[in-house]
């Protein structure tokens, strides 16, 4: 399967995905129930939820964070992500 791209850049080179703050997360699973892209995965043990498929995350989408009561989900800074994508695109253009 060919690698997925976003705005012409290999998705794997864009570090856009949620980060769970386990100090805050109460494993209510709202985010996992919400997200249709299987970014999260449930686990047995102390840490019951992990970001298993970061590349499935839709770049610039932060919807799961809005469902998070304890405010445990954060995302990379948007302007620097845009800057990175621009940089990668220009590299791509230069070949």
């Amino acid at each position, binding site marked *: *399967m060919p690698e*997925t791209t*976003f*705005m012409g850049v290999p998705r794997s080179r864009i570090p856009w995905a949620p980060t769970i703050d386990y100090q805050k997360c109460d494993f209510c699973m709202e985010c996992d129930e*919400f997200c*249709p892209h299987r970014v999260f995965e449930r686990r047995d043990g102390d840490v019951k939820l992990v970001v298993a498929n970061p590349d499935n995350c*839709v*770049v*610039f*989408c*932060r*919807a799961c964070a*809005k469902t998070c009561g304890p405010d445990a989900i954060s995302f990379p800074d*948007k*302007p620097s992500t*845009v800057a990175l*994508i*621009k940089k990668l695109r220009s590299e791509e253009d230069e070949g």
Partner: protein
Amino acid sequence: MSYLVLACTGLDKAEGSVAREVAIRLAEEAGAAIICPVALNRIPARYKKALAENRLVVVDGCATGCAGKLAAAAGAKPALRVLVSDVVKQAGSVLPPDLRLGPDALDLAREIADEIAARQAAAPGPQPAVAQKPGPVAFAPPADFVVVVHDKYEFRIPVTGFFFNANDIWVQVAGSRARVGISDYMQQRLTDITYVDPPEIGATIEQFDDICTVESTKAAFEVVSPVSGRVVLVNEALEDAPEAINEDPYDSWIAELELSAWEEDRTLLVDGPAYAAEVERKAAED
């Protein structure tokens, strides 16, 4: 009366106390008229006339921007917006956390008030805060479509006049205005749309900020803005009939923006034929 001042007056942070002090100073020394944020929230009609006739200065304490949001909710566009926490940060100083203002905080309030007063004295004309509703701008319906067929689905993409971001949002530009909406591909993936949570009029959006949320019978979807600008209109018809997006995705615009950086935004968007190729790829991956 020279202008209106709406300050957050936040009671839980020193920045709020400073904002309040700024408003009082402007009223005492520069003849500004105070809009009480609590009253504006409770009885917006009280200030309707004043907002329609005068310019407005908004002073917020912190980035939560309550006063700015109250102004936006009243349909008012501030001529000047000041954020106390930003001023403190830019000055490289730290505001003591006391809610009762000490000498340093009072100095800060005076500086901010003087700066606002000076800028307002130099400002031209009355510039009412609540503008007349912006007149209609002509957005032509799509003339021709590319059709991407995948399984039983047919995804239509306008050949010209529309640009797309990688989050499946279209933008149509007319002069300095742009309309944004959801592509045919995405509306079909979402299936029946049941709710559109519209953005606030007056909200400033940067490219790739989420502009609003859309709910369907299958999923919730964040509308990621393809452009930067200020929201000037929302499509109120979608409130009662969100399914219109399913019926005619390119006519069912969600918001209209006054563009602020179109030339730059454009470089990160694709045109219809390029988006069609993108849709083909995405549909194959699904």
